[in-house]
């Protein structure tokens, strides 16, 4: 019996998915305190859409008892509804590292430290977070753990040992094969984002959510100020009947063609 359970444990894959708590995509972005802080008043927070894609793929890969999916978030207690959403989508358990995610370096270090202590076969992230738009965390985790990282992937097949990955490159794609542990950051195409069903929402309430304290690491930089784009001038309307005028305007006035 003991041999049997050990064997089962051995062939089950363990995937860690990193999720970020970000403002909903329809949010109008404003700042407070002399443009030094993002104004969270009235803002709805969601699971970062790319992380949702990563999570959905992880769940697909583990379907049918092939493995388990753990989600990890570096955030303060306010991010727990977002973590529960990830559990409702289908993650088996969750970890929250109790700290404000200072920057990608800090966040990646926390996740790498957790992953070091818990043996995961693969770590998946979204291609970038839609707030700070760093696409840094995945590759930084890879570097901290000294394992391969593949950024901006569009397809992932993984049997627990070998992964076949399609990565986006300018004007095409690259197919990469990795044997052993790896980190990947997922873009559209990797999976269709799953929508939680009622059973998922109910069971999410009782799934394990472990809270860990952060590990100290030096600060290398920080955001000191935000700016909003300069407003554009008024639109110059061209009547549809003389649409051809656009070409001469783009040539002699805007000078872009």
């Amino acid at each position, binding site marked *: 019996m003991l041999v049997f359970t050990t064997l089962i444990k051995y062939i089950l894959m363990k995937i860690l998915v990193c999720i970020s708590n970000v403002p909903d995509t329809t949010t109008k972005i404003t700042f407070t305190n002399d443009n030094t802080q993002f104004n969270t008043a009235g803002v709805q927070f969601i699971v970062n859409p790319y992380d949702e894609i990563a999570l959905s793929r992880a769940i697909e890969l583990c379907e049918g008892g092939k493995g388990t999916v753990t989600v990890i978030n570096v955030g303060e207690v306010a991010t727990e509804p977002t973590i529960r959403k990830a559990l409702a989508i289908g993650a088996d358990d969750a970890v929250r590292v109790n700290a404000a995610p200072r920057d990608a370096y800090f966040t990646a270090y926390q996740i790498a430290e957790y992953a070091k202590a818990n043996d995961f076969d693969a770590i998946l992230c979204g291609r970038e977070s839609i707030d700070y738009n760093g696409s840094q965390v995945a590759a930084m985790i*890879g570097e901290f753990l000294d394992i391969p990282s593949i950024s901006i992937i569009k397809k992932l097949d993984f049997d627990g040992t070998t992964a076949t990955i399609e990565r986006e490159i*300018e004007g095409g794609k*690259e197919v990469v094969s*990795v044997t052993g542990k790896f980190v990947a950051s997922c873009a*559209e195409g990797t999976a269709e984002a799953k929508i939680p069903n009622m059973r998922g929402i109910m069971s999410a309430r009782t799934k394990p959510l472990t809270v860990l304290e952060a590990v100290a690491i030096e600060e290398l*930089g920080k955001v*000191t100020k935000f*700016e909003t784009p300069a407003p554009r001038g008024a639109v110059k309307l061209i009547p549809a009947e003389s649409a051809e005028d656009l070409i001469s305007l783009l*040539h002699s006035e805007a000078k872009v063609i």
Partner: protein
Amino acid sequence: MSVLVYVEQVDGKFKKSVFEAVSYAKAIADNQNTSLTAISIGNVAESDLKELGKYGASKVLNVATDQLKTFVNQAYAAVIAEAATKEGSNIVVLSNSFSGKGLSPRVAVKLKAGLVDGAVELPNFDGGFSVKKTAFSGKAFAVTSLTSANKVIALNPNAFGVKENPADAVIENFSPEVKATDLTAIVKEIVRATNKVSLPDAELVVSAGRGLKGPENWGMIEELADLLGAATACSKPVSDADWRPHSEHVGQTGIAISPNLYIAIGISGAIQHLAGVSSSKVIVVINKDPEAPFFKVADYGIVGDAFEVVPKIIAALKAHKG
């Protein structure tokens, strides 16, 4: 000490975004009263390496090791970090390309360097070192102050421009040792459409949305793009419906672009779409709905049916090109 710039080759050639990164790194080197060294990994002809001098690189480290012919970020990061140490470079510049995005974070961790990716301007050196970058998917910018001794900057395409600043580039072969464990990710296949303009680098982009009614109507969009030498793009509903590939989706959850010209045809301009394109220099909107929100951020607008307007523009463009 010098500033180090990584020059990414694609099939042995450098693209415009590389010359842009070299120009940008040269401006930083000038400010720091130091020289600029470039590092190239892969097989690039000497004449192409020499050309980097035109934009200010006075030295080019050429890593032509067979093992490193194809891009593996783990190994490339190790080589770049080693070059930075050897050259005493505390500032490393890269292009924020697809490969650059997988590379710069690893280089930064190796060098314990603060990293700004998606930089849109030269650093501000007044009383420190801060760099402006895109944030909230183009809805805002974040000024990031780097306090670490080493710094890594990944520059967004089309953010700085190519600036000539001739220097005589000395080419030096550099053969660092590569750990086998850094090469475990194996590139099996590269599929690249060579006849198409790549979207993130494109200076001109023609984009279309649901107003086109179906994928069978993209012929005129492609014709217009071909005539302009532009890349094609689309809105999210279009890629979600599989009318066009995901790689063409621009917007908050697609890719953010900043071309010189963005022509949006039959796209209403939802806030998520605008986020990804609002830093385009000139925006043209063609939509039959005069209330479409996209007109509020457009430089030129045509209220009309795309199926009547676009053919007229194509005809005018053909006449213009003679």
